[in-house]
């Protein structure tokens, strides 16, 4: 009894201990030592695109001359090691566009080596001009880092608009920089939350998922990238919301009210054959809602949101396996901030991005599993939510949720600078990045 008394006295201090250092900002990565690339290009469109790509890929810093005169002089200066080293550049890229073809040469100011970049035709069938240019950026990034870049990747998102007094929403796609946007679905209903298949198979080839309100209750739909309308994917009753796919592609997690509450469900899946067996109710709690599941890359755990302890927080739960005798119980992961929502596990499994209310606004926070820290990534008086990771685990796209608009932003974990990548009519939200 006496012990219980002291525990009760100390308990508030133990619970508060997480909040004391909430103003400390910890950088996820060490000092920025990215190689600097000087970009010389006679085509303004190609130059701007290369400059954006090579400045926002998280591994290089792109630079270009401010004045035309300087640019003219440097474009004709030969690849002489002492000259370019004195300028402080690590690489010099010379690119040009000629008769619908683009060419490039990369000079290393460290070794003096000259590498030719593959020439590319800008008029490829079914591929946009910008897409071809992004492929050039990706090749340069691979040459420098020996790793696949994100420049050639695409993003998917929902665009909401008010048409004749009725709210409509369709699925759109764009290059990762927000350009080259085009509408994918023509459902003329309310479509949100696009989800891409990470694992390629006969069934999943060229397909994606989204939530469609066409029949009234929201259902998960499957569609091809080249088709305007999709088909219902899972036959389970009730509303189906917020689907998430495991990285191995063998499981789908989603929120469903088949039992009358917003519960967490899973559905076994095969990328070659489609749905396998029946959906399974994974977690429920009286008078609580569950939301936003996200798989750990190894597929053994799911992060999800529950308000079972009043304020929404991120919990982890084991994914059951056949023959498992244990009853999985959720463990609360995030404690530092309140109203923790929209968790998204990074492809490398080391980080979990989520949105948390800090100082009255929802900001993007990253839970670093290596150091077990919760690190604030964004600031400012706008709500930010729905973070999603790029395949390189260093870039996140999220949407703002301002009263009048909702746009997509790109953030690099190193720089922590928000870059707006969309604009124009309609609210853009629920971004997803191609795997």
């Amino acid at each position, binding site marked *: 009894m006496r012990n219980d008394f002291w525990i009760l006295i100390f308990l508030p201090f133990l619970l508060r201990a997480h909040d004391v250092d909430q103003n400390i900002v910890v950088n996820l990565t060490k000092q920025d030592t990215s190689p600097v690339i000087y970009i010389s290009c006679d085509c303004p469109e190609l130059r701007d695109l290369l400059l954006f790509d090579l400045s926002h890929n998280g591994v290089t810093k792109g630079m270009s001359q401010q004045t035309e005169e300087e640019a003219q002089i440097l474009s004709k200066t030969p690849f002489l090691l002492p000259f370019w080293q004195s300028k402080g550049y690590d690489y010099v890229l010379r690119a040009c566009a000629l008769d619908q073809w683009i060419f490039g040469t990369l000079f290393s100011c460290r070794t003096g080596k000259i590498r030719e970049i593959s020439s590319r035709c800008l008029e490829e069938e079914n591929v946009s001009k910008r897409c071809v240019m992004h492929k050039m950026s990706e090749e340069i990034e691979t040459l420098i880092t020996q790793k696949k870049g994100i420049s050639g990747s695409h993003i998917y998102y929902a665009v909401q608009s008010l048409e004749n007094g009725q709210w409509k929403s369709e699925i759109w796609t764009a290059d990762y920089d927000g350009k080259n946007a085009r509408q994918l679905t023509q459902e003329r209903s309310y479509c949100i939350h696009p989800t891409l298949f990470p694992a390629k198979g006969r069934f999943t080839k060229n397909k994606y998922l989204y939530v469609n309100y066409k029949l009234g209750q929201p259902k998960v739909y499957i569609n091809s990238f080249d088709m305007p309308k999709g088909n219902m994917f899972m036959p389970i009753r*009730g*509303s189906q919301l917020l689907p998430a796919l495991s990285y191995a592609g063998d499981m789908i997690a989603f929120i469903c009210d088949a039992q009358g509450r917003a519960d967490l469900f899973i559905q076994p899946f095969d990328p070659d054959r489609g749905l396998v067996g029946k959906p399974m109710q994974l977690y429920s709690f*009286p008078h609580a809602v569950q939301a936003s599941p996200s798989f750990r890359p190894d597929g053994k755990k799911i992060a999800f949101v529950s308000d079972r302890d009043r304020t929404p927080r991120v919990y982890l739960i084991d994914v059951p396996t056949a023959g498992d005798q244990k009853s999985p119980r959720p463990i609360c992961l995030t404690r530092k901030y309140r109203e923790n929502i929209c968790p998204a596990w990074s492809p490398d499994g080391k980080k979990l991005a989520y949105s948390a209310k800090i100082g009255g606004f929802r900001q993007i926070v990253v839970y670093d599993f290596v150091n077990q820290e919760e690190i604030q990534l964004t600031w400012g008086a706008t709500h930010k939510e729905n973070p999603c990771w790029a395949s390189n685990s260093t870039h996140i796209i999220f949407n703002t949720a301002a009263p009048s608009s909702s746009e997509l932003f790109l953030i690099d974990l190193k720089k922590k600078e928000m870059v707006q990548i969309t604009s124009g009519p309609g609210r853009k939200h629920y971004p997803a990045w191609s795997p």
Partner: protein
Amino acid sequence: MKRNLLYLIFSLFVICYLCVGCHHSSGTVWEDTKTMGRYLQRKGKLFWRKDVDSRMIAAADEFVGPVEAEFIPLKQEDLEAQLVSAAVPQPVESPGVEGSSIPSIEYFSTPSPELAALFKTVHFNTDEHTVRGKGDYELIDRMAHYMKKNPKIYIFISGHCDERASEAYNLALGTRRANTIRSLLVKKGVNPSHIYTVSFGKEMPVDLGHTPDAWAKNRRVEFKIFKKE
């Protein structure tokens, strides 16, 4: 003497706690207190062997489930034992899908002028899913009475939220609001297969303002009606 010392230490702890609490807003302190209260309550129940969490499947056989079952549910005994208002499963037949006798929501209409007073919008408090007061309970009672007298009536209950919480969480919260009204109607004797629910979260506000009044209007459930001929 010993008792005085104990009081002194206790007082010091209370003062320290209040000082630490002053670093934060009253809202965050209250949130923490509630979280702590719930945590202690659950641990207390576990101590008396009352399991609060729902349990998952425990054996390999349960992975397959009965042949006729649409999905494999959680073991419900624990949940049902403690739920004040047990949740009601959704109708097996989803409206508008192939083979369904009930059409999609396009065929459901907003209540006609004579039914508008009956199927009125129900509003909720912030972050709440429970009905606010006597007036709303009476309204639901009258709705249930009408639906029982008119067995050809089917309704869609749509749950909505205000703009303050996130989109994804609001989708789930709207589901809870719509299902709460559905559970109450079923309790009053309405056929559960005549009531469908949908959540739009904060996607479809009725008031585009950003004031407490606008938020109060947007935290709602609305009704759409279909009469099967």
